[in-house]
């Protein structure tokens, strides 16, 4: 009788989600349990569903990594947009140096939070920074909404980036199990 094996597609997805050092050992663990325990106990169809659930349980870790990459993108884009904004001397709105500085500052704080995943107050500062710059960007947008110029587009993109960064801070999972860090 042919042995029922884990679905190839899901196994490939699992390998993609795992760090390289764990790929063989983790897929091996799951393979063994799938063939020896799960299929005889649950049958082929439910065993495949079981395997899918196992694979999906590795998603949050990978997602955290992806979100960190997105945040790095925010930092680069924010800096770039800030520099571009500095070049545009359009009178009547918020000082562009402030906007650029705040975008870069907020992105830096967000990166710090993601990199260190440190104390709760730092997350709060990052979130407060996001809210602050969001309101400034919104105020600046109101000023340019009637005349669609380049500055308006830049601010719109900056706004989207800030929202994304705020979501990143909120979504990235907290470091599992850490209760407190003592000096």
């Amino acid at each position, binding site marked *: 009788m042919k042995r029922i094996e884990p679905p190839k597609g899901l196994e490939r997805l699992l390998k993609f989600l*795992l760090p390289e050092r764990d790929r063989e050992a983790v897929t*091996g663990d*799951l393979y063994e349990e799938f063939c020896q325990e799960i299929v005889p106990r649950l049958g082929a169809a439910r065993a495949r569903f079981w395997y899918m659930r*196992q694979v999906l349980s*590795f*998603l*949050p870790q990978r997602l955290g990594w992806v979100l960190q990459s997105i945040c790095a993108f925010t930092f680069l884009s924010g800096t770039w947009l800030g520099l571009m904004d500095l070049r545009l001397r359009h009178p009547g709105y918020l000082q562009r140096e402030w906007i650029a500085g705040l975008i870069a500052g907020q992105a830096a704080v967000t990166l710090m939070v993601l990199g260190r995943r440190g104390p709760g107050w730092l997350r709060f500062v990052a979130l407060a920074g996001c809210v602050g710059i969001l309101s400034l960007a919104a105020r600046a947008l109101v000023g340019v909404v009637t005349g669609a110029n380049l500055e308006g587009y830049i601010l719109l993109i900056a706004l989207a980036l800030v929202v994304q960064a705020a979501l990143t801070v909120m979504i990235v999972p907290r470091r*599992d*199990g850490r209760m407190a860090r003592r000096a």
Partner: protein
Amino acid sequence: MAALLGTFEQMVLLAVMAAGEEAYGRAVLRTVQASLGAQRTVSAGAVYATLDRLEAEGLVTSRLEEGTPARGGRVRRFYRLTTPGANALSEARKVLEQMWRGVTWPAEVMG
């Protein structure tokens, strides 16, 4: 001084200790799941990620063993508690015991 271990980390370390020579990922997962009962499901991803992190912090060490046909020829990674790991567990237990000693349950919670 090292960071205080979280509850889940303590559970994983204790499972590694309990499984002894047979402490590989799924065995650790099964032990943790058995301790929590059917009410809560432990995610495999969380267990493996915790083991990786504990190893990076030097609280456990791992070795690879050659795969068998039952595993499709893939290696198996076994974990073992290190001395710093045992110390960290012991410290976490001591801190919690100290705190529990000073607590008196209010009557309304007990009832």
